[in-house]
């Protein structure tokens, strides 16, 4: 159909973490404008298979912008040109006929390429394991309404908790810093009354684990620009304040315990 798009794609291919990798140039003709970006890649893969070329591996699952699995760099932008939109929710009507589209994996020191467009983001899980939780063993909870949470606090917590853990913030950051991801989880838990008992311990542990794996934040704000959930930079300021307080509190708690 004439309304469809003819595109020139440059897709990153790489066999494994230590393999060199290179761009594959493909003409992708007759792509529906209603297709999602990943459906466009599905179509390309079907065609590659027909030509006996191994399909491109790319990360995806829910295709609804919520699981955080997808994510590629499109023409230099993490998740592509549409604001507040994960790769799977980007649709081809945002492109024009004849466009050249370069597709790369997340590029970050802490996210080694596994294959093609798939990277290893497991350091993000390490940050959560370091303290991104509220200890509440199953069965021990009081009635949910015993702990009122002011509406605005619940809303602020939810704003932060909306993070999908895709890692676009890290990929977009010139320093590969994970401040936005870490701050979002800290703010989610630290503003809640339930999060207070472990607040300082959590903050110190998460920030220091983050620093072990990721680069340093120099306030570029690229993370926020790339974030499909528009997580606010204010959370980073919140985290920095809490971290300083945590250092002091944890020291005085330690001396009290002595």
């Amino acid at each position, binding site marked *: 159909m004439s309304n469809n798009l003819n595109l020139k794609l440059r897709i990153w291919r790489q066999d*494994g973490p230590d393999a060199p990798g290179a761009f594959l140039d493909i003409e992708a003709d007759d792509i*529906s404008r*209603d*297709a*999602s970006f990943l*459906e466009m890649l*599905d*179509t390309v893969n079907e065609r590659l*298979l027909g030509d006996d*070329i*191994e*399909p491109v*591996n790319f990360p*995806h*699952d*829910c*295709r609804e*912008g*919520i*699981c*955080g*699995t997808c994510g590629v760099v499109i023409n230099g932008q993490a998740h592509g040109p549409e604001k507040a*939109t994960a790769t799977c*929710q980007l649709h081809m*009507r945002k492109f024009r006929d004849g466009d050249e589209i370069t597709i790369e994996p997340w590029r970050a020191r802490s996210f080694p390429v*596994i*294959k093609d467009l*798939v990277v*290893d983001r*497991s350091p*993000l*899980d390490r940050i*959560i*394991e*370091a303290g*991104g*939780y*509220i200890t*509440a063993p*199953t*069965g021990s*909870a*009081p*009635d*949910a*309404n015993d*702990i*009122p*949470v*002011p*509406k605005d606090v*619940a809303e602020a*917590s*939810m704003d932060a*908790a*909306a993070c*999908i*853990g895709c890692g676009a913030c890290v990929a977009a950051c010139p320093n590969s810093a994970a401040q936005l991801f870490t701050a979002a989880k800290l703010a*989610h838990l630290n503003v809640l009354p*339930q999060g207070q008992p472990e607040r300082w311990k959590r903050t110190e542990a998460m920030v220091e684990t983050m620093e072990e794996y990721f680069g340093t934040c120099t306030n570029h704000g690229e993370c926020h620009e790339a974030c499909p959930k528009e997580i606010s930079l204010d959370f980073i300021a919140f985290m920095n304040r809490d971290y300083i307080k945590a250092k002091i509190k944890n020291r005085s708690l330690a001396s009290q315990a002595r």
Partner: protein
Amino acid sequence: MISLDSKVPAGPLADKWDNHRFSIKLVNPANKRKYDIIVVGTGLAGASAAASLAELGYNVKVFTFHDSPRRAHSIAAQGGINAAKNYRNDGDSIHRLFYDTVKGGDYRSREANVYRLSQVSVEIIDQCAAQGVPFAREYGGLLANRSFGGAQVSRTFYARGQTGQQLLLGAYQALAAQIATGKVTLYNRSDVLDIVTKDGEACGVVVRDMLTGQVSAHSGHAVVLASGGYGNVYYLSTNAMNSNVTAAWRAHRRGAAFANPCYTQIHPTCIPASDEFQSKLTLMSESLRNDGRIWVPRDLDETRPAGGIPEAERYYYLEDKYPAFGNLVPRDVASRNAKTVVDEGHGVGALKNGVYLDLSDTLANEGVETVRERYGNLFDMYERITGEDPYRVPMRIYPAVHYGMGGLWVDYNLMTNVPGLYAIGEANFSDHGANRLGASALMQGLADGYFVLPYTIGDYLAPRLGTKPVPTDDPVFTNGITEVDDRTRHWLAVKGTRSADHYHRELGKILWDYCGMTRDKAGLERALSEIPAIRDEFRKDVKVLGTADGLNQSLENVNRVDDFMELAELAARDALHREESCGAHFRVESQTEEGEALRDDENFSYVAAWEWKGPDIPQELNKEPLTFENIKLSQRSYK
């Protein structure tokens, strides 16, 4: 024949769970560390179970094919989670939630299980709130609720339109804490490709490391499958792309009965497909039906945009046919009626494959801002997908496959008929009968994982104190590994002409046409002749490139499609044998004069649990009779 002992405890309904907990065996706290438990899946059911078991002291190995536990399909649930808290003082109670769930399931679920689910629903909300799940709140700081999916009370708890995400993050974080302590070992990017039994008892799993391709065996005292639902057997569904039936299906092939596979929920409010390359369908939360009116143009040749069609020329078919419930009729009724009007030619959109879900009254009465606050995320998502602005033109929706009520047969303890093998969450068949109510899957997954399995598994484990897990060099494991390796080699050797997706799409079309919203004998027989044919062709002609010794998404997919091929046949067989209409299963031959579903309690009040007999041999039907002592059966009526 297999034995289907439901193990429902004796005694009055309200006391059963309590009595049962008292009468089953316990594992002493100091002894729990002597047991290894394998959990497959990190969705709501798997993550909550793994975390809770580890807190109790068991050693847990948890497997997921995702890169992180947090990505499980549960993350996508939007609407909310039910619980009989009666915080709204509107007449809810444990008994009412129980009653609604059994009735909603069209009397095809087990009373005792559903009652327990309603009982523990209350604890789930407490647990999740304590974990920091940011539920919606009232100004006073107490929890907010909404009415959902046609319920007559407001018992649904929610976190914006991201309830599944927040509940899963809560469970994932609890799991992460246990991973940090070392009580849980996480195997991510690990595809469980077989379940291993020895002397009839479950003893482990065979797993492919998706990064290296290495196939290995893991053994434990018990195996818990929390591997989610199988809606993707239809190819197009609201499920995440990688959701699949493999773990449950392989368990079935090893002896676990598969129950009620014909009960598939088709959700009424999804965005219609835009073309044949569509890869999945997106759900628009059902909560929109609270504020929206569903209609189609009366004129089959209507060409005007929605706004230009006068009131009198609109057909509000749900409001007309069901004055009492109107747009809030249950999912199956809403879906079937949408199909009817679209089949009659009333459909809207370029492909005439949808109906309008129109919020213009609400937009006019309550204002754009109110609507934005309530549904902003959904509206944005709709616009991204369709390119249309739902604040200005009504949304187009159409039903899509959403949830499998069927699954592995389990007893009251959530154990399959294979000793030591448990199934929880969407992977089992337990609580929803022939139709699931909105906001009840999250409740069931978390009930199973937090509050049921951690108790009931002790009953199986306690007498096994002092036994060691079967060593992984036992022939049951080495043979299991060889079988998986052979299967992999087979796929790479076929060197056919078409992708697994191609065949999957074909399979999905057959199922959707003949085993979708309406079914009849002729169509199901046709499906039963077409599915084996397409399966044979698939096995001979599929094309998988690349190698087995590293990440290869086509290889992962082909295994899953292969298992779907077998499941599809069973679903059609189950649908054919069930000559009544019930819940989501509508047999054209069994309807009232008004065209509503007609149940046949005399002949079909049972769970159909199918037993594997070997490749290319039809499964054998086993029946677990359903008895109702606390609820009077009635034909559902929403008029």
